[in-house]
């Protein structure tokens, strides 16, 4: 245990020496990592905010059941009974033909300043049904809509099905896009860090050979370079997230009011804490993998002599 700690301490010292000997290369690598993590972080921020927008929109979705003009009292009672017995329904509101027409005329007058007068009322009566919040709220709405659509006395149902389905598809695309971008950037980062570590190895080639000559274990030789790769990943991700944090707070203070007016109740979000940790962890892991590849390849070449 003591010898492991000792080896690690020596490894840390050698890592610092490596960084000092190649400050410029280390800095370039850290900035490249920061840019890559920044790109990924930006996509994540967009994704989180779209998700937030979708969630706030989801809360506002309600089911409207339009009734036929000739609906009978017993058919209406049947419908109301169905609403009452569905545990997921929060509230129902009956909108008569007259009220619907009145509301429509009022909203038209507000928008265009014109008073509508057709001489007849073309709008049907309806029920506005609100659902309780739950994980599968949209699914429940869609299932219930299908059920009542077939009932006698119901003309049609409306809950923005097409929009919801389009938005859901868009979010799936966003997820796939994020994963593909993440994978591509990770691959690029592995190549960049691995090259930086290779440079670091070549700059200390004499020292490495000497270490092996005087009885160092392969692990002892590899540790400083593995630590250097991890350090690059850590510094790059922290630099990137730090900068993104600053930009985020600036944008939030400047534009939060505008965002709220566009999407009511929506808060401009940063990357969530678990994802921040995942980004930093992934970056450190990428650094480790990249430096492992370089040191492994170099040691293979040495061993083949």
């Amino acid at each position: 245990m003591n010898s492991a700690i000792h080896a690690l301490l020596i490894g840390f010292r050698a890592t610092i020496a490596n960084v000092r000997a190649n400050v410029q290369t280390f800095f370039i690598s850290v900035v490249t990592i920061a840019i890559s993590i920044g790109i990924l972080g930006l996509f994540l921020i967009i994704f989180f905010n779209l998700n937030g927008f979708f969630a706030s929109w989801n809360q506002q979705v309600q089911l409207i059941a339009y009734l036929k003009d000739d609906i009978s009292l017993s058919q209406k009672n049947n419908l109301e009974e169905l609403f009452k017995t569905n545990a997921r329904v929060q509230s129902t509101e009956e909108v008569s033909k007259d009220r619907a027409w009145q509301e429509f005329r009022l909203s038209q007058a507000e928008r265009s300043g014109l008073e509508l007068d057709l001489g007849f009322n073309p709008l049907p009566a309806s029920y506005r049904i609100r659902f309780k919040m739950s994980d599968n709220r949209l699914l429940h709405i869609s299932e219930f809509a299908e059920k009542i659509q077939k009932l006698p006395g119901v003309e049609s149902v409306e809950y923005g099905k097409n929009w919801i389905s389009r938005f859901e598809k868009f979010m799936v695309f966003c997820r796939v896009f994020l994963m593909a971008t993440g994978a591509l950037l990770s691959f690029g980062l592995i190549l960049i860090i691995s090259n930086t570590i290779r440079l670091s190895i070549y700059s200390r080639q004499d020292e490495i050979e000497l270490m092996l000559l005087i009885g160092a274990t392969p692990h002892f030789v590899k540790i400083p370079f593995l630590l250097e790769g991890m350090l690059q990943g850590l510094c790059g991700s922290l630099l990137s997230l730090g900068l993104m944090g600053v930009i985020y707070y600036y944008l939030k203070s400047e534009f939060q009011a505008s965002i709220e007016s566009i999407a009511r109740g929506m808060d401009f979000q940063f990357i969530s804490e678990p994802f921040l940790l995942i980004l930093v962890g992934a970056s450190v892991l990428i650094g480790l993998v990249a430096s492992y590849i370089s040191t492994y390849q170099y040691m293979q070449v040495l061993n083949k002599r």
Partner: protein
Amino acid sequence: MIQLFNVIKKYGSGNPALDDISLKIERGEFVFLTGPSGAGKTTILKVLFGWEDFEEGQVLVQGINVGKLNADNMHTLRRSIGVIFQDYKLLTNKTVFENVAFAQEVTNRDRKTIKFKTWEALKNVGLTPKKDSFPPQLSGGEQQRVAIARAMVNAPPIILADEPTGNLDQEISLEILKLFEELNRNGATIVFATHNQDILKLGNHRVITLNRGKVVSS
């Protein structure tokens, strides 16, 4: 202590660098390995500390079968050998003290022991006043003495020296030879490769002569 049985080592498709070499060096012996350039002196040393592999034969060092070692356990052999080179192989960005201490750091010794042993090794080669100097600030003889201090600091039972006086004048060479003889008196087995006939005459030790990868006399 050191035994080679019918060792053959080839570089590419040319003549073998070591051609069916068999020899034995006893514990505590001081042996000169000599021969013209290309005779195989350096190759034998490299084979002994596992830096070069070989095609045929067997090599035993301290009871370790060198041919059976791999990258992961090679350090067990190398920790029992101190190696000295003609070009010293000192780290120019480290001080004299750090160069000698470095050989112990890789073996995971604690700092206190490292400090004590390094000081002792530098005292033995007469370099304590230069402990904070960097190798380029030293003369050839002084650099070679640092290399000797580094090789002996872990008290290995075997010391292999590849032309350690090759870059030095006669007077300094003699000083270096005396240092090796001192190490030998303290129990180390020394294999000293040189083509310098004056050194061979000065040291009254067994001489193994190689030519074109073969042992000519032993």
